């Protein structure tokens, strides 16, 4: 390789590439010489936070990642679980926060495209999408445009590809004003004996490039996702990636078609840091070297340099190692689907990444240090100071409970998100059993095997309560996992495993790192208590603007198995005359509650503690009741407590509810407290006694809290409003926000 002048790589260039002096010293040491610009670029993206997980790696290692259903845990493109009969579910969640803030439509769309590629890369057909969104306060000048762009982008991509977007969650909080979160999850279906991995094997095997041509899109996207925003970053926009769902659809069909043969040895999508990270990850995992001829890379623009090609983040591209002798077949399949395809290199035994461009060697570096010797920091972490516990009598009761109920149900986090999910095709593929439209706890998608629809289904949910995580990361981490487990339970599923998307601020600040470590600790405790492992995930750090970090937001995506579709449960089945039973204990926990925020504009107080034993106990009991067909409607209690759960059940069932307060607690604590491990169930008269008696025997707290019927939502000693009236307010909040007709609540 041509020796470059010593001056080519100045300290400024190193700094622009986001490498610290220490990190650059390691580069020099491992190479034994100065890198050229292409090589520096490769090190910089591989060692970015986004690709190397340098601040988070050691902590992620603590997660429970195995169970008898886990086929593949973290470390591949997506996690894989066994759901019997030779079927496997492949799933993962990923963030596209920074790109979506800069260009909401394309940012969100390409986020969906990226997560789908992670899933079909493993040999799975994507069958469901979920989205977990966090926006700034509703009245913030940017919020409306961000909401409409992000939602249109998610729909625009998923709808076009033809994968149903079946559920999600949406929060609004000033903590996201300068840094929204767009987390997308994809669930796919594969056969256990036909899962594909990314480890390149063998020497001399052809490497294929498939998909769209490479352009100068998103160069430095990976480093952008790893740097804080400041007000200038809207000016210094790098080229934004544009998604092409049409090509993605073709890519899915083509890859699945080729995967049905034995032509593919290894496959990896080109995500962040495109060709660089895909080739290096494949080589590193397989312990081989890679030689690529960049002249063969399909290019959309003229005059692209090696640096640009290696760092481009053009979408809808895949890299694969093909079985020698199967090249023709591969070309045939990809050409049938009219995709760009090229053989661009081979695997080697050198352990090095060697790139040639215009007959010159433009990069020759050892692969091991790029992956294995990537920095791995133990950043200082300061635990979040515990907050004071707020007792019910330290919180003022509302003067008007009708108004209180309306305020709670039209809180931005509580109000109906119909405006969002009506823009998502929830039914395409014709296997959606339940989705956002029921307001249910988890979406349900039937397993459609090679021989047609089966009686099995998967349940899917995403959950996180950032205000709890902010108040107490450990409890918040537990709660996020526990709520996902509860939500799967509520629809009659056996919770199996989770994926996560850990969104935090700048890890170089010890209090942020403390939030990160605390949330992981809490999540992991819950995973272990429920035998509910983490099989995939994603970390997004540096989510802050001008030094203000987002609330810690470890979004959890849970997947459960419903072995028999006739045992599917919903919250919409309550009938007039049913008895309402509350499962779980109530202390009236108002700290960090929606009630406190919606009525008193306060976010203080310790969040509800999560008793993992009680969660498991109560949840297992509820699931048993569902299996024994003892219940007509089930909903877990979360934001807004008993009152909110009853309203949501009433909306879904289309009948009123009448609640009582059999406790000693003041009405606000009883109706709006957010104690965990609780469920509201609606059941017919005959089942009431058996349910209560069995619960008593098992030590599961259970009591009658009201009955279903009528056209009003009533609570003794508190509110009495018409069902339709409240539903109207609840439904109208978001359309009014988006039409600009009203200000924030």
């Amino acid at each position, binding site marked *: 390789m041509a020796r470059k002048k010593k001056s080519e790589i100045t300290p400024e260039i190193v700094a622009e590439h986001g490498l610290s002096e220490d990190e650059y010293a390691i580069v020099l040491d491992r190479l034994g010489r100065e890198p050229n610009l292409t090589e520096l670029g490769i090190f910089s993206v591989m060692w970015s936070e986004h690709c190397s997980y340098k601040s988070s790696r050691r902590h992620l290692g603590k997660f429970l990642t195995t169970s008898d259903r886990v086929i593949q845990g973290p470390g591949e493109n997506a996690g894989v679980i066994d759901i019997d009969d030779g079927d496997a579910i492949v799933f993962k969640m990923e963030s596209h926060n920074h790109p979506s803030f800069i260009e909401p439509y394309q940012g969100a769309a390409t986020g969906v495209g990226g997560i789908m590629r992670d899933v079909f890369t493993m040999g799975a057909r994507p069958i469901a999408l979920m989205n977990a969104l966090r926006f700034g306060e509703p009245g913030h000048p940017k919020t409306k445009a961000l909401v409409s762009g992000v939602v249109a982008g998610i729909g625009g991509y998923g*709808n076009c590809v033809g994968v149903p977007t079946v559920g999600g969650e949406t929060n609004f909080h000033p903590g996201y004003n300068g840094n929204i979160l767009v987390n997308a999850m994809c669930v796919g279906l594969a056969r256990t004996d036909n899962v594909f991995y990314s480890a390149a094997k063998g020497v001399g095997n052809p490497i294929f490039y498939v998909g769209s041509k490479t352009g100068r899109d998103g160069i430095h996207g990976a480093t952008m996702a790893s740097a804080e925003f400041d007000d200038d970053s809207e000016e210094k926009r790098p080229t934004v990636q544009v998604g092409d*769902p*049409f090509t993605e659809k073709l890519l899915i069909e083509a890859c699945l078609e080729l995967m049905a043969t034995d032509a593919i040895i290894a496959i990896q999508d080109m995500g962040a840091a495109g060709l660089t990270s895909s080739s290096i990850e494949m080589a590193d995992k397989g312990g081989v070297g890679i030689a690529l001829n960049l002249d063969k890379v399909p290019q959309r623009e003229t005059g692209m340099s090696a640096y640009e090609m290696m760092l481009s983040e053009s979408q809808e591209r895949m890299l694969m190692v093909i079985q020698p002798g199967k090249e023709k077949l591969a070309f045939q399949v990809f050409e049938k689907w009219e995709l760009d395809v090229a053989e661009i290199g081979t695997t080697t035994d050198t352990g090095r990444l060697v790139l040639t461009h215009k007959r010159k060697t433009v990069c020759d570096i050892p692969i091991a240090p790029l992956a294995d010797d990537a920095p791995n920091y133990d950043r200082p972490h300061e635990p979040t100071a515990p907050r004071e516990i707020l007792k019910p009598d330290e919180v003022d009761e509302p003067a008007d409970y009708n108004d209180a109920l309306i305020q709670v149900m039209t809180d931005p986090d509580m109000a109906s998100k119909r405006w969002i999910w009506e823009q998502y095709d929830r*039914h395409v593929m*014709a296997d959606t059993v339940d989705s956002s439209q029921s307001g249910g706890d988890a979406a349900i998608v039937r397993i459609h095997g090679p021989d*047609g629809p089966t009686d099995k289904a998967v349940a899917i949910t995403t959950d996180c309560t950032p205000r709890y995580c902010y108040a107490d990361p450990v409890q918040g981490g537990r709660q996020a996992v526990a709520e996902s487990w509860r939500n799967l339970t509520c629809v009659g599923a056996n919770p199996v495993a989770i994926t996560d998307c850990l969104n935090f601020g700048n890890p170089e600040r010890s209090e942020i790192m403390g939030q990160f470590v605390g949330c992981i600790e809490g999540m992991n405790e819950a995973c272990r208590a429920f035998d509910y492992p983490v099989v995939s995930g994603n970390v997004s750090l540096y989510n802050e603007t001008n030094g203000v970090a987002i609330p810690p937001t470890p979004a959890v995506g849970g997947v459960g198995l419903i072995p028999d579709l006739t045992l599917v449960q919903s919250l919409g089945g309550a009938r007039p005359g049913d008895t309402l039973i509350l499962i779980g204990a109530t202390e009236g926990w108002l700290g960090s509650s929606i009630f406190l925020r919606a009525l008193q504009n306060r976010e203080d107080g310790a969040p509800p503690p999560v008793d993992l034993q009680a969660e498991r106990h109560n949840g297992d009991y509820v699931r048993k009741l569902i299996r024994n067909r003892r219940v007509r409607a089930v909903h877990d209690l979360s934001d807004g407590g008993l009152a909110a759960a009853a309203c949501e059940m009433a909306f879904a069932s289309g009948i009123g509810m009448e609640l009582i307060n059999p406790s000693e607690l003041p009405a606000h604590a009883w109706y709006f407290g957010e104690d965990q491990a609780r469920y509201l169930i609606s059941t017919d008269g005959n089942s009431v006694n058996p349910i209560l008696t069995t619960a008593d025997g098992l030590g599961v707290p259970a009591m009658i809290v009201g009955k279903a019927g009528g056209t009003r939502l009533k609570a003794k000693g508190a509110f009495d409003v018409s069902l339709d009236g409240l539903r109207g307010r609840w439904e109208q909040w978001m359309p009014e926000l988006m039409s600009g007709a009203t200000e924030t609540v």
Partner: protein
Amino acid sequence: MSTAVIVFPASNCDRDAAVALEKVTGKPPRMVWHKDTSIPDDVRFVVVPGGFSYGDYLRSGAIAANSPVIRDLKDKSEAGLPVLGICNGFQILTEAGMLPGALMRNANQKFVCRISRLRLANAKTRFTSQYDAKHEIDVPVAHHDGNYFADDETLRRIEGGGQVVFRYSENPNGSRNDIAGIVNASGNVLGMMPHPERAVDTVHGGTDGITLFKSIVGSL
């Protein structure tokens, strides 16, 4: 006797349509690739399924309407072959001139996915003969470009000729006269925005769509 589903690049309701057809005929339909120049001779009924053929670039359905297989479909439909175009399939049939009018962007500019209640404007077609004319049916819609437009004269003609088959009870997209589905003048080509194939199984939450497939298959 066979049925067929046409598959374009980025059709995405092709499998759904095939499942519905198999449910009604007991036999999987032929899947006909868009590059095929002709529809097999034993095919008695063709579904042009929903999706985003060619990404819906330029105009929904425009590029697909120019494919070889649609040219053949047009000829065969003129000779009487029954054809059902659903959603993107409806767009393709209007673009191909097999049905009058055009489907424009939804009036509110947004994609809409919801269960829509439909009135039967004509229960005497080959596609609707087994419906109870008085009943309204629930069928999901999911589209961005479902806003049916025809000029006044065309509208008068199709209304007068009983060509309007389904109407929305609550118009989700701005369609003229709440039109959700129409047939051609000879009554053998139906295009509709709602997805009957997504309402053929109790897990879908309703089975109002199956009657449509039963009607047409029963008429063959």
